[in-house]
């Protein structure tokens, strides 16, 4: 099971990466308004 020496660091790196992404998204204000985006996508100028 020595392969765990590889898999655990990789998984932790991935988890850490996603945590960093989460922190960035909160700091950037991505989670401030969780209502309007759902509506915004419906009204594109272009029909498609």
């Amino acid at each position, binding site marked *: *099971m020595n392969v*765990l020496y590889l898999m*655990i660091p990789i998984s*932790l790196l991935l*988890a*850490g990466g*996603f*945590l960093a992404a*989460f*922190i960035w998204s*909160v*700091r950037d204000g991505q*989670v*401030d*308004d*969780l*209502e*309007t985006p759902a*509506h*915004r996508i*419906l*009204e594109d*100028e272009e029909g498609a």
Partner: protein
Amino acid sequence: MQNSNALEKIDFSFLDQPEFRKSFTSGPESNCIRFYVSGIRCSKCVRKLENLSTTVPGLKQLRVELGKNLAYAEVNPEILNFSDLAKKIVELGFNPIPLSEPSQEIAAQKLEDRNELIRLGVAAACAGNIMTFSFATYFGEAGAFYSIFSWLSFILYLPVVTYVAWPFYVGAWTSLRQKSLSIDFPMAVASLAGFVFSTIELLRGKHDIYFDSLSGFLFLILVSRWAQKRVQRRFLRREEIEDTLRLQRVRVLNSTGWNWLPTDSLKIGDRILLYRSETLPAQVELETSYARVGMSWLSGEIKPKTFLQGSTVPAGARLDSSEATFVVKGLLKDSNFGRIIQEVQKFNLTNNRIVSRADKWAQWLLVSVFLCALVFLFSYWSTSSEEAIRRSLALIILACPCAMAFGVPLALIFSLRKAQQRGLIIRNANVFENAKSIQTIFFDKTGTLTDSDLTLIEDPTSVSKIYQKIILSLENESTHPIAFAFRKAIPNTDSLLSVEQLRETPGIGISGYIYGRLYELRGEVGDSSIGCTFFEDKKLLFKFTFEAAIRPDCQMILTELRRRNYRVALISGDRKETVESLGKKLGFKDEDIFSEMDPDKKLFVISRTQNPMMIGDGVNDSLALMKASVSVASSGGVEAALKSSDVYLTEPSLRGVLDLLDISKDSIGLIRQNLLISVGYNLLGGVLALSGYINPFVAAVLMPISSGFILFITWWRGHS
């Protein structure tokens, strides 16, 4: 969507004044502004507004926040100014109200929210990964990887014990310095003690490692706090009433004319100009010779008061005459009105008896738990030090005064909210507890059981049509209750006649010339009735009488209260005949009718009764109201009413009384239920923990569950 005609008349030019920009704009170049835009309901609205940025030159961006009805705009000031932007929004059919920049408080709150969310994220990530590794060890891994996984749990717990648990340490330390115990304390102790204990076990190569339980426990507590805070905030949000009343700007006079200025920038000595139906944003001295001003919001009087040049007019009064100028003598925030705005919107829980009692109990619980844990620790140490630590830790983690610390305030908040929805303004939440022990309910007559409005008793058709028209024409501009009564009774179909030399003299009546004849209406206030005589050229033509109508659902409410075994009594300062005739009509027993009661006598009756509720006029009955166990003001200005009463009814119906009683019953019942559950849980859990049946891991799971359970029950029962 609003009537755009009405909107187009609104003048937005004040938005371009430099003083305005100071407090209403933001951004490094002061070119960003926030609007409150009511009427945004759907995706199309979002699109219409946001697309303005591509159709209006100079509008760099416009973003809508649907949930809060906000629109943020960034402009290029060289091309587009704010007033034109506002006009464009109006053209789309929306009503934009510029908002002043959020206070430091709100900005700080936003930052705090974000930090809390990040803390939650870190807690979740660490707890989840720790659990992965510790589960592996539980599921049987005992080989080389055991110590690796354990050390990984330790490393992943470090951010938890420092960053995630930080607010608990701060809270615990603060409360300790104030010589009290807050609920942060056990969390802080558990987090630290658990960390130390587990680390020592880890170093010794043993198995009592609890990083997973502790991190999971801290995560769940953070989640429940987050949820609770959001609920609390949603129900306690201070509406920006000033913005809705358009109090944010005022015309300030200068040498050349007048300018719009933000109210915040008013200084004492400024001269301001108001038009009809605008509200005074400051305490002022009247400059114009005469002004008629409505004071209903302040004093409860429906009839506008007339002020003469030089008199002081309070802030919050509404101008009833067509225009007037004033000199500022006192600022809004220092005025009664300004204070009311704040007080009325803010529910003050700190003086609440139940909450303080609950806080005390919570503290006692925590102290006892800690004492128990310490005692147990010392006495069991000799038997097995590890077991002693484990069980004490379990006890500390398990014990939760959640029902008291969270449940009681939450229940009260829901009740306050419910009350608010039914039109009750409550001064403080003690009233719920008091209402439960009410036995007798005293009703005042005028304004409580009867309308403040007058109704014409005689049939208006007994007067010929031409005289009806004359009466209406005379009373056309009057705001006297008699005038309202006439207007209610006589239908107005044709155009009115023009009146020469119209004069309304307060206390006397109204007179004027129509077709060369002098017509007069003279008011007479008798003991039990209000009357009015109609003269043509000094000759008496008609006599009218008015009465105050009984409020429509009185009978029903009284019946219901009797059904619930309350004793109901009628107490009034009016004459015996009037009061007794009303009393009999409404089914009051003879011994329960008190007439010709002046304020002192009312006070005497109230103080002799056990557990009385008094419902009356906030101003006139203030003495009696203050004495009653529960006092409800059904009329009178809100400021005065709230000085003397616990509750102010904003709707004319007495339905609010029943609502109050119902809500109180539910509220107290819920609080008692929560306390019972909490006590039971803590007792049982404590015993099991100290007997060794619950280890810290299980305790860490149970505590958030119990906390969440109580919150859930409270929400469920309180919410519906």
